[in-house]
């Protein structure tokens, strides 16, 4: 076999490998989408037929999920979106302030504060859940958005990233602002913030994804059905007896699909956001 032929065979093999891999990776999503169109009793009695047969499919599960009086699904969706949006906006603002302060200035105590940022970053925050819960109860923000958002809104990972980014921007910009009579805060808001735009983009995606998927803290803070986020609400439907599967399955599908669509249209920023946050953070 010539070298060229060998290469073609290798390319075909690699392609087949990726095709098979993609099939297995996407299978659970395909599976749950298919299951969402089936009656759940039928699903349990006969297992899932993976062929697409329009006659045996219906939108009943979705109707139940969205329009039934006992369903809180739309509340969960609203809560998830609002908490995620509020968290991301406030976290970006506060964390960028701190990161910029650490990256752009030389001041006494800077290293100490930076070390403390690293310490918080390396801490398994799950161990603080009990006292944090007590604190949130004392502050009377249990079962509120504020209770979910406040304790983690100043994000050490984002601070770390903004610090790196701000440290890389030339100090000449700051001096120019000073000569023009800007306050130090004016310099941040008018000059540095626009210069740090890429950092804001990357961190927005990282923080939003983290928050959207967070589980244990909202599980502790949110106590009533109408305040749950999507993961907490769906988790509340889980039971070993499988009696809620109709809502659970369609609920999971509607939780996945919109994000996948958003991702498909903004792939590059998603991936660069996560890589930047992950590797440099």
């Amino acid at each position, binding site marked *: 076999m010539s070298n060229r032929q060998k290469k073609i065979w*290798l390319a075909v093999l*690699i392609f087949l*490998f*990726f095709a098979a*891999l*993609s099939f297995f*990776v996407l299978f*659970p*999503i395909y*599976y*749950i989408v298919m*299951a969402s169109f089936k009656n759940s009793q039928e699903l*349990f009695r006969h297992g899932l037929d993976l062929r697409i047969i329009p006659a045996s499919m219906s939108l009943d599960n979705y109707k139940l999920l969205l329009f039934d009086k006992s369903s809180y699904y739309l509340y969960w969706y609203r809560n998830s979106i609002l908490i995620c949006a509020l968290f991301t906006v406030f976290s970006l603002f506060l*964390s960028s*302030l701190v990161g910029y*302060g*650490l990256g752009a*200035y030389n001041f006494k105590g*800077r290293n100490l*504060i930076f070390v403390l*940022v690293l310490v*918080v970053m*390396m801490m*398994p925050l*799950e*161990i*603080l*859940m*009990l*006292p944090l819960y*007590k*604190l949130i109860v004392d502050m009377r923000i249990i079962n509120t958005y504020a209770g979910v958002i406040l304790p983690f*809104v*100043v994000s050490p990972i984002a*601070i770390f990233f903004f610090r790196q980014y701000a440290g890389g921007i030339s100090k000449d910009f700051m001096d120019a*602002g000073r000569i*023009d*009579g800007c*306050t*130090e*805060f*004016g310099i941040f*808001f*008018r000059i540095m913030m626009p210069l740090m735009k890429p950092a804001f983009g990357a961190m927005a995606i990282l923080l939003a*994804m983290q928050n959207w*998927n967070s*589980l*244990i803290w909202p599980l502790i803070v949110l106590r009533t059905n109408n305040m749950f986020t999507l993961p907490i609400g769906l*988790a509340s439907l*889980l*039971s*070993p007896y499988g009696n809620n*599967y109709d809502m659970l*399955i369609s609920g*999971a599908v509607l*939780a*996945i699909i919109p994000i996948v669509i958003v*991702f498909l249209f903004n792939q590059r920023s998603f991936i660069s956001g*996560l890589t930047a946050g*992950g590797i440099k953070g």
Partner: protein
Amino acid sequence: MIRPPGAGSGPGIPARRMFTGDDRLALKKILYSEKWAPYIFVLPFVISLLVFFLYPMITTIIMSFQEVISLNNTRFIGLRNYERLFDVHFYNALKTNTIYTVLTIALTIPIPLLIAVLLNSRLTKGKTFFKTVLFIPALTSVIVAGIPFRLMFGELDTALVNSVLIDLGLKPQKWLLNYWTGMMLMVILHVWRNAGIFMVYYIAGLQNVPDELYESASIDGAGAFKKFRYITLPMLKPILIYTLTITIFEGYRMFGESYVLWNESMPSDIGLTIVRYIYQQAFQRNDLGFGSAIGITLLLIVLVINLVQLRYFGLFRKERD
């Protein structure tokens, strides 16, 4: 941008009339002071650190030496909470976390690395498409992702995986009632959701390796394996260490994978992890003292691992400027 000092300099100055002349002067001084400004910039972190980190941390440490009968009724009991850690449940949780961590390291690092190397190769067609597809599971939350897995691995004979096993002439399994099949499900769920992220990290790392290195290696007659061993791996070392660190970290604080599979009943500690044990003792049994002692122990475990990392890999060494 040119303005007289103090004339509407951005959102930094609130309603002016609230301040007397002296206050205003002091405020102006701070706003224009390179010396004071950074302290205001870092203030959000300091407040958050004091209120949401140090205060709870100190409370946890104190509570771990107490019997907490109610929030206002506590008494010190010395090390008794820690002595209780020598029970079988904590041992089971620690064992589960350790096995889970080892398995996730063994899977979520080599597989995405192989995928990344292949996706970086010139021979691969449809790279962007495959990269997109393989990343999609990373977008799901653990609860949402757990739902199809729970369905597929249901215990009835008609559940997908069991029906395939039956077709193949094998015995159907009660996946969630057996330690190792349960462990397998948690690991699969983790790998499914995390492999895409690591793949993206490794691809980013590979793109930073200069092509000339490979070219000169080819001229020296190095084969694909040698190039991987002597160029790719050393160049990826920082990212590999980073992913190793977070895998260990995530492994010992795992909660979601276990919660979605056994959210209510958990026969004989299958899937009991350290964080679940804290959750169970503190929030379900109201034993805050013991819950805190477990938490402090988890903290010590993670600290030891971090110190070992620092000692051997010097992860943050380059950060000290």
